[in-house]
């Protein structure tokens, strides 16, 4: 019951000795994620102390970490100036799944990093994303572990904290998840709604999908079209930013409405026309999912 990662995924943390990296490395280890090592240039040879007496070796480079630990996934918590290179370093070392939590990476850096990852056959989740949690299996990123629970719902979102809000309501209502994926709010996400929908459709256990979108871009419209053509399980949607004034940037690079393209109204319409039921409030997602599952 998972997509992209599971309890056997061997994870390294890039930036493991930093404030955020060390905090979330411990959270991931406490959740049960198989964290096999960390990377901080200049701090190779140390040992990272995790929770409950567990620990992980620290390496100077991803290549050393991968050859010593057999890691196949990585979570990146390094400052924006170095994050695009961190993605390329991971892909270069053969890491197949790279979660980039870092926010504020220059977009032109990301055009190169995404091309590099594609060339090397690595999947990037993010940047500027909360990561993925497969309840009971593993979490990579910063989604709080206690809000999720195993179950039949697959959730994918462009937002961070709004994802938590939705997952929180689902879990509180007894609706557990196969996986919750935050694809991130940047204009160039490495993994799209559609990539996640494909993974949910292929996993054989996801019984309903929740898609949380926001204003800006056309990712939700593309996802809606894919749902209509390919998805065999019901889908529920939510769009943030119905009241945002046009032409204003709302917090991160993804959430900007220029003229009529990418408005909440447009996205809501695309969802509804393609059979995705749209919740008015985050809490309403629960009832729509419950109804969908009951059908």
């Amino acid at each position, binding site marked *: 019951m998972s997509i992209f990662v599971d309890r056997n995924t061997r994870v390294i943390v890039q930036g493991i000795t930093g404030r*955020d990296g060390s905090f979330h490395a411990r959270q991931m280890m406490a959740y049960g994620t198989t964290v096999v090592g960390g990377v901080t240039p200049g701090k190779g040879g140390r040992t990272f102390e995790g929770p409950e007496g567990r620990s992980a070796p620290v390496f100077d480079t991803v290549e050393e970490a991968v050859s010593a630990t057999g890691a196949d996934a990585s979570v990146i918590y390094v400052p924006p100036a170095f994050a695009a290179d961190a993605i390329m370093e991971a892909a270069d070392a053969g890491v197949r799944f790279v979660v980039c939590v870092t926010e504020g990476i*220059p977009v032109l850096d990301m055009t190169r990093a995404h091309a590099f990852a594609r060339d090397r056959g690595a999947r990037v989740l993010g940047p500027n994303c909360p990561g993925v949690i497969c309840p009971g299996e593993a979490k990579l990123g910063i989604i709080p572990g206690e*809000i999720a629970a195993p179950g039949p719902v697959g959730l994918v979102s462009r937002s961070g*904290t709004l994802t938590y809000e939705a997952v929180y309501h689902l879990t509180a209502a007894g609706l557990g998840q196969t996986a919750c994926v935050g694809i991130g709010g940047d204009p160039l996400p490495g993994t799209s709604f559609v990539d996640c929908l494909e993974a949910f459709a292929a996993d054989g256990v996801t019984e309903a999908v929740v898609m949380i979108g926001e204003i800006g871009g056309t990712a939700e419209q593309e996802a809606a079209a894919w749902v209509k053509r390919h998805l065999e399980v019901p889908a529920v949607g939510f769009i943030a930013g119905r009241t945002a004034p046009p032409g204003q940037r709302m917090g*991160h690079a993804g959430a900007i409405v220029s003229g009529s393209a990418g408005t909440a109204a447009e996205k809501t319409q695309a969802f509804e026309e393609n059979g995705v039921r749209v919740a008015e409030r985050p809490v309403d997602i629960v009832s729509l999912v419950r109804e969908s599952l009951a059908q």
Partner: protein
Amino acid sequence: MDLYEYQASERFRAAGMRTNQGVVAETPEAARAAAEQIGGPVIVKAQVHTGGRGKAGGVKLAASPAEARDRAGAILGMEIKGLRVRKVLVAPAEDIVSEAYAGVLVDREAQCAVMMVSAEGGVDIEEVAARDPGAIHKVRVDPRYGLLAHQARFLAGRLYSDKALARQGAKAIAQLYDAFVESGASMAEINPLVVNGAGEVVALDAKMSIDDNELFRLPEIEAMRDAGAEEPASRQARAAGLSFVKLSGAVGCCVNGAGLAMATMDLVKYYGGEPANFLDIGGSSSPDKVVAALEIITTDPDVKAILFNIFGGITRCDDVAKGIVEATSRVGLEVPLVIRLTGTNEALAKDILAEAGFQFASSMDDVVEKAVNLASA
């Protein structure tokens, strides 16, 4: 961050482009002096961070220095789409034979820069795109190779059938791409790109938006920021690393995460209120950011109630709680405050806030409903 025409034009020139170089003036008298220095007829152009200035009367021809002074006098101080004009650019009037469009931006779908040209320049390019998509020619720029010579030639060939003009056009297009990359831009545009009477391809206008994430490594562009044109609250928010947009309602909102912040605003409206602002304190927030956020929100006299909606992930609830306590003890709060906190270090946070006498809402819906009621009380 948007650049003014004269700033974008400077970036284009640094890449070698032939532009309509002028002199910036902030007073009618300075505009007169600029026109005298340039000699001959000039064009006086409002410098504002928005399009459509021509239609609004922000671009005027002047035959003499005295006329330039009068034109500048009329343009300076005028308002275009809500923005006051504080500077004009005085530039030599070009003899225009033809007008084209050239632009480059990062395309989400292609995940790379896309360059566009159209032989229909000098008009609103979005209108052209809507009316006749075939009039706009595009090439995707593979980030691994940059704009290739044959791509620039292809685009120039869509603008000019004359060989010498096509060669000049290809050069200007390559220079536009260079300026775009070297400036860390998310968009750069020339509209119109003209052929003048001397048969030269010249950028008559210049527009550029910089990716804010690039500014840390481009101090020369950061220095182009016109802090005087910003609202004090926006300036303060930027300095504190907050995303902030002033709106017109009475419910001040302080949220972590852009999506949750927008959903919170939507919910304010759902419960019959109006948000006073969009404010995202971001991930990994320190207490200082929360202090700055509260200061900014409380400066707005329209705010009648303030809500906090925090779902801790990378943000730790205790950091937010410390910030609230510190800010309220320092500035003294005159409007009611309702708080919803959950997630990372929630228990710690509640202890801190309870000790300081704050109360909590039980959910996002609860905090919003309470704040709306308090604001309309």
